[in-house]
C-alpha cells in the first residue's frame, strides 16, 4: 500500500467516524425526544415503541439514587409459541435525576404476541405483553411545504410520509395551523395522503403550519409522532367580491340618476341659487357706464338724466319697486329722519373728494334745478301712487333718506339730486329696528360680469324711530334690491374738506368700468 492510499484510507476512516459520531448523537437526541413523549403517553412498563419494520426499543425509568448497576437487571422477551430470549441493556441519562434502562432489538416479528419480563436480581419488576405492529412511534413527516393555491383563504400543505413499506395506506396525519400570535390553532385530519388544502383562512394573514403522523389502528397502530418543524406562510390578500363591486356600481349609478333627475327638475331653482341675477341699471341709465364710465354727475350733466330717469320711471311698464322718494320739505317736516347707521363708513376715494370740492363751487347754481326737479318728482309720485306722500310716511318699508347738505330748513325741500353735493342716506324701518335686513338678489337676468355677487345685503340702523337730522334731507324709501351698501355718515358741505364722502362699497363684483353710482338720489327699479 502506497503512502497516498494509506492517507486516503485514514481520511475515509476519519470521515466515517465523524459521520458515525454525528449519527449516533442524532440518534441519541431522537431517542431522548421519543422517550420523553412515551413517558408522558404510556402508563405501562417497560415502554416500548417500533420506529420502522425492524427497529424496536423498550425502556423503563428509575431514580438514580435507587437504581442499581445495569448488571442487576435482565430484560427477557418471548414471541408466542417460541422460546424466550434476553436483550442486552444500556443506560441513558434522563432529566430530573433519573436514568433510563434501554433494550434495543433489530429483528422483530409482527402480528404475534410478544411477552416481556424485566428482572432485577431475579425479581420481576416489570411484565408486559404486546403486539409490535400496534406500538409504532414514527418520525414526524419531512419536507413540510406550505404554498398558496391561488384562491383566497386557502393554503396547500404537502409533506413526505415516513418511508414505511406496506403502511402508507394506514397512516393518518394531523395538520395544525394557527394564525401568527395565536398559541392554539385548528387541526385538520388527512388519511392516507400526503397533501391537504386548508380552507376558510383569513386573507392576508400569516399562518404557522405543523404536521404529525400516526398509524390508523386497524392493521397497524401506535402513538402520535412529534410535530414537524413549523412552516410559516401568508395567505393571499382579500379580493373584492365581484358581487359587491357590481352592486356598488349599480347603486352608485342609481343615485347619480336620481341626483340628475332632481337637478333637471329644479334646474331653475339651482341656477337662481348659484348664479343669481344682479339687477343692473344699464337699461335705465343708458350710456352711464359705457360712455361715462359710471360717472353719474357727468351723465346727468350731459344728458337729461333726471328727466330721463323720471320718464323711465313713469312710462316704464314696470311698476316701481318700493323705492320712494320723499321730499322732506312738504311731507317729512314732522318726520324725524333716522340717524345714520352706526356702521357709517367714512371711506371715500380721492376722486370723490375732488369731485366734491369741484362740485361745491357749483352747488348754488344747481340748487334751483334740484328744487324744480324735486317738486316735479313729488307730483309724479302722487299721480302714480295716490296718497303715497302721507302713506309713505307711514310706510313700513325700509327706506333710505338722501339728503343734501348745506340747505336751510325751509329749503330742504329743494334738496334733490344735487350733483355736486354729497348726499346722506338714512336708512330706517319702522318695522323691526336694529335688525339687519337680508335679502336675496332675487331671480332675474343676471348681467354680465357679476357672477360673484353676494346674496346678501345688510342695512343696519341704530334706533327705532326717526330723529331729525336737520334741514336739507330728502328721504327715499329704498327697497332692498339686493345690493349691499355701506352707509357713511352724512357729511355736510362745509365738512367736505374734512370728511370724505361715503362710498358705496359693493359686495358684488362689478366690472371696473362701472363705478358705484349711488351718490345721488335715484330711483331704482328692482328688476328682480
Amino acid at each position, binding site marked *: 500500500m502506497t503512502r497516498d492510499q494509506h492517507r486516503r484510507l485514514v481520511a475515509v476512516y476519519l470521515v466515517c467516524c465523524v459521520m458515525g459520531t454525528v449519527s449516533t448523537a442524532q440518534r441519541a437526541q431522537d431517542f431522548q425526544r421519543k422517550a420523553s413523549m412515551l413517558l408522558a403517553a404510556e402508563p405501562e412498563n417497560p415502554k416500548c415503541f417500533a420506529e420502522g*419494520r*425492524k427497529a424496536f426499543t423498550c425502556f423503563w425509568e428509575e431514580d438514580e439514587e435507587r437504581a442499581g448497576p445495569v448488571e442487576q437487571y435482565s430484560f427477557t422477551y418471548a*414471541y*408466542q*409459541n417460541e422460546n424466550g430470549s434476553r436483550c442486552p441493556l444500556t443506560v441513558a441519562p434522563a432529566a430530573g435525576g433519573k436514568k433510563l434502562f434501554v433494550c434495543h432489538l433489530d*429483528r*422483530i*416479528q*409482527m*402480528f*404475534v*404476541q410478544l411477552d416481556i419480563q424485566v428482572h432485577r436480581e431475579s425479581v420481576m419488576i416489570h411484565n408486559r405483553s404486546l*403486539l409490535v*405492529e400496534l406500538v409504532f412511534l414514527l418520525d414526524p413527516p419531512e419536507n413540510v411545504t406550505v404554498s398558496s393555491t391561488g384562491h383566497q383563504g386557502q393554503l396547500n400543505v404537502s409533506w413526505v410520509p415516513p418511508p414505511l*413499506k*406496506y403502511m402508507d*395506506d394506514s397512516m393518518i396525519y394531523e395538520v395544525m395551523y394557527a394564525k401568527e400570535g395565536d398559541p392554539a390553532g385548528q387541526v385538520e385530519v388527512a388519511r392516507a395522503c400526503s397533501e391537504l388544502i386548508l380552507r376558510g383562512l383569513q386573507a392576508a394573514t400569516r399562518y404557522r403550519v405543523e404536521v404529525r403522523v400516526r398509524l390508523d389502528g*386497524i*392493521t397497524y397502530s401506535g402513538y402520535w409522532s412529534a410535530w414537524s418543524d413549523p412552516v410559516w406562510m401568508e395567505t393571499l390578500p382579500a379580493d373584492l367580491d365581484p358581487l359587491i363591486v357590481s352592486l356598488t356600481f349599480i347603486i352608485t349609478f342609481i343615485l347619480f340618476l336620481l341626483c340628475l333627475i332632481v337637478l333637471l327638475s329644479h334646474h331653475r331653482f339651482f341656477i337662481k341659487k348659484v348664479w343669481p341675477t344682479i339687477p343692473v341699471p344699464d337699461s335705465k341709465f343708458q350710456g352711464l357706464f359705457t360712455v361715462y364710465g359710471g360717472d353719474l354727475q357727468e351723465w346727468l350733466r350731459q344728458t337729461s338724466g333726471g328727466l330721463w330717469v323720471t320718464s323711465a320711471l313713469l312710462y316704464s311698464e314696470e311698476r316701481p319697486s318700493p323705492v320712494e322718494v320723499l321730499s322732506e320739505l312738504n311731507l317729512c317736516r314732522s318726520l324725524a329722519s333716522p340717524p345714520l347707521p352706526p356702521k357709517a363708513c367714512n371711506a371715500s376715494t380721492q376722486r370723490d373728494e375732488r369731485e366734491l370740492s369741484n362740485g361745491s363751487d357749483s352747488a348754488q347754481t344747481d340748487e334751483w334745478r334740484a328744487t324744480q326737479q324735486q317738486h316735479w318728482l313729488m307730483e309724479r309720485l302722487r299721480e302714480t301712487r295716490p296718497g303715497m306722500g302721507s302713506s309713505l310716511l307711514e310706510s313700513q318699508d325700509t327706506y333710505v333718506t338722501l339728503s343734501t347738505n348745506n340747505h336751510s330748513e325751509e329749503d330742504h325741500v329743494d334738496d334733490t339730486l344735487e350733483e355736486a353735493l354729497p348726499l346722506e342716506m338714512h336708512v330706517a324701518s319702522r318695522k323691526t329696528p336694529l335688525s339687519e335686513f337680508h335679502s336675496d338678489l332675487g331671480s332675474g337676468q343676471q348681467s354680465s360680469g357679476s357672477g360673484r355677487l353676494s346674496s346678501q345685503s345688510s342695512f343696519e340702523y341704530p334706533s327705532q324711530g326717526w330723529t331729525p337730522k336737520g334741514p336739507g334731507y330728502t328721504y327715499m324709501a329704498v327697497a332692498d334690491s339686493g345690493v349691499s351698501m355701506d352707509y357713511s355718515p352724512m357729511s355736510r358741505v362745509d365738512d367736505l374738506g374734512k370728511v370724505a364722502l361715503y362710498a358705496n362699497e359693493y359686495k358684488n363684483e362689478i366690472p371696473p368700468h362701472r363705478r358705484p353710482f349711488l351718490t345721488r338720489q335715484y330711483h331704482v327699479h328692482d328688476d328682480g
Partner: protein
Amino acid sequence: HWTCPGLPSPPRPICDLRVLNHFIQEARDAEVAMKSCRDGCGLTELVSVPQTTVNFDDWERKNATEQAQEVQTGLWLLHQALGLLQASMTDVDLNNHIDNSIRNLLSINAVLRSLNIQEYTPPTSAVGLEGTWKVSSVAEVLQVHVNFLRGKVRLLLVGAEACQQDVS
C-alpha cells in the same frame, strides 16, 4: 378464451383494502365478544390454526406463489377451526360472530380469486403442516383469526400483482 360467448368475464380485481379492513373489524368484534363469554364458550379439543408471525424480510424472500399458498392454507385452517367452534359454542351472541367470521373467510377467498391468485387447497389432514399452531381455547382461535387477517392476508393483497398494475 375470455371472448367466447356465454363465458363469464373475469372478476374485477378487488384492491380496495377497505374491504379487508371491514373483515378485520368484525373479527375484532368477535374477539371482544369472546372476553365477555362465561359459559358455553370453550373448546373440547385442540385445533390447528395458522401461524400469524410476520417478518418482513422473511416474507419478501418468498415468491408470490409461496405467499399465496401460505395465505390460502391459513384461511383453510381458520375455516376448519371456526367450524369446530360453531358446532361447540352455545352462546348465541358469540355464535353469531363466528358465523359472520366464517362468511368473511369465504369472501376473502373471493377477493383472492379476483386478484387472479391461483386457488390452493391444502391436504385434508392438517397434522404436520408447517406453519401451524395448536391452540386449546376459543380466545386463542379468535386472536389468531384477527392477526392472520391483519398480517399475511393483508400483505398478500397489498403486494398482489393485479393491484400493482391497477395502481400504475
